[in-house]
């Protein structure tokens, strides 16, 4: 970080290497489009590099980076003024996808994703942006309630309310589509 703040591009590239995948995942889930998520991801690192000399280290670097990315996602959504759409082709050949994606993602993951992606993405796209973002930050980026509250600039109780309402709506929608019924977990 210290070298990066001094303008060392190679050091910053090491930071990019560490954070590009999580930032892309965040942008993709919020926006729902692969190419636009790549653009947001790229712009995030560009802005971060330019603003790095002013980063005082009072917050975690990851939180600062996430804030830049979320602001860009918000700007994109407002600019597009439309709901994100699912991009996974319904008739995609699993073997072809597996061969093209290489050994990083298992075929089991691809099968699960094919089944769930279209439904989950559509359901998530119907949620208000703040609820969707709160769920994404909690479920996929492991942030605490307080960290999400700091990122979204709202009280802790508001974050929990957004999470609860968002999850409840998702549950209702997916149950109606019969996705959750067969996977209901028996109470302990």
């Amino acid at each position, binding site marked *: 970080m210290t070298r990066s703040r001094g*303008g060392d*591009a190679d050091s*910053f*590239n090491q930071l*990019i290497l560490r954070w*590009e995948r999580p930032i*892309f995942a965040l942008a*993709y*889930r919020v926006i729902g489009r*692969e190419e636009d*998520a*790549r653009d947001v*991801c*790229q*712009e995030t*690192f*560009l802005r971060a*590099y*330019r603003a790095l000399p002013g980063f005082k280290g009072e917050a975690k670097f990851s939180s600062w980076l996430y804030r830049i990315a979320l602001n860009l996602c918000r700007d994109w959504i407002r600019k597009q003024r439309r709901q994100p759409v699912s991009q996974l082709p319904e008739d995609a050949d699993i073997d072809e996808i597996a061969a093209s*994606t*290489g*050994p990083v*993602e*298992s*075929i*089991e*993951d691809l*099968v*699960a*994703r094919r*089944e*769930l*992606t279209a439904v*989950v*993405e559509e359901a*998530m796209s119907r949620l208000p942006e703040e609820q969707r973002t709160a*769920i994404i930050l*909690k*479920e996929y980026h492991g942030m*605490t*309630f307080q960290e999400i509250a700091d990122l979204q600039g709202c009280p802790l*109780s508001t974050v*929990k*309310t957004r999470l*609860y309402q968002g*999850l*409840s709506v*998702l*549950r209702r929608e*997916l*149950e109606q589509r019969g*996705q*959750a019924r*067969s*996977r*209901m*977990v*028996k*109470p*302990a």
Partner: protein
Amino acid sequence: MNQNAHVDHEQLLSYLYGECDPGERAHVESHLGGCSACAEEVAGLTSMRQLLAGWAPPDVALGFQISRTAATEAGSGVEGAPSRGNGWWTRPMPAWAQAAAAVLVFGAGLAIGTGRTAGAPAAAPQVVAAAPPVVSESPLAAPVADDRLAREVAQLRTELASLRRVAAAAPVAAANPPLLDQMRAMLEESEQRQRVEFTARSAQLARDFEVRRRVDLDTVNQTIVRVQGQAGAEVRQQRQAIEGLARAVSLGVR
């Protein structure tokens, strides 16, 4: 707290995500044991989280990096490229090259040092004649405490002195200087070791990948069989329901 009251959603979420203290956790678990509504709520949210866990972004090549021109110019940009590195000067130097460079620098320094401190040229042959490594009487060797290091320093100094003598005395070199031959041998040996190590690691990676691929394929086959079974059961249920409905309708018409 009143056991008849339901758990509020904030407590529920804290419990669901494991962010409550032990006392609160115990209270929630105690309540869930006696309240089917809250237990079903927790089960439903847990199921929902399991579904969400299956939603993954596409595995695409990213490889973003700040370009060198971007780092220095005002109109900066981030390149997204599948490969990293702009040129050979950005790649890390292999260990063998670093070692060779260090030997060259060290040898050059010794040559300069011996050139300044050496007296008549006749002193160099005396050192060269002693083929086995010997501890030099030069003042430079005095601070060296390690005997082995001192011997290596003396050997290098001897070889460099011979190089200077050959270059100064003979217009045509009879053969390659022994130092260069030794360095070439060291480099070749290092390269060979790295090739062997790289091959071994590549083979291990290939074996690991093959094992993982087989495990994943088995898991996929099991999943497909299970899904087909579930789908078949649902189709049968629906068919039965439709047939029952048709019978009821026909009976009603009669």
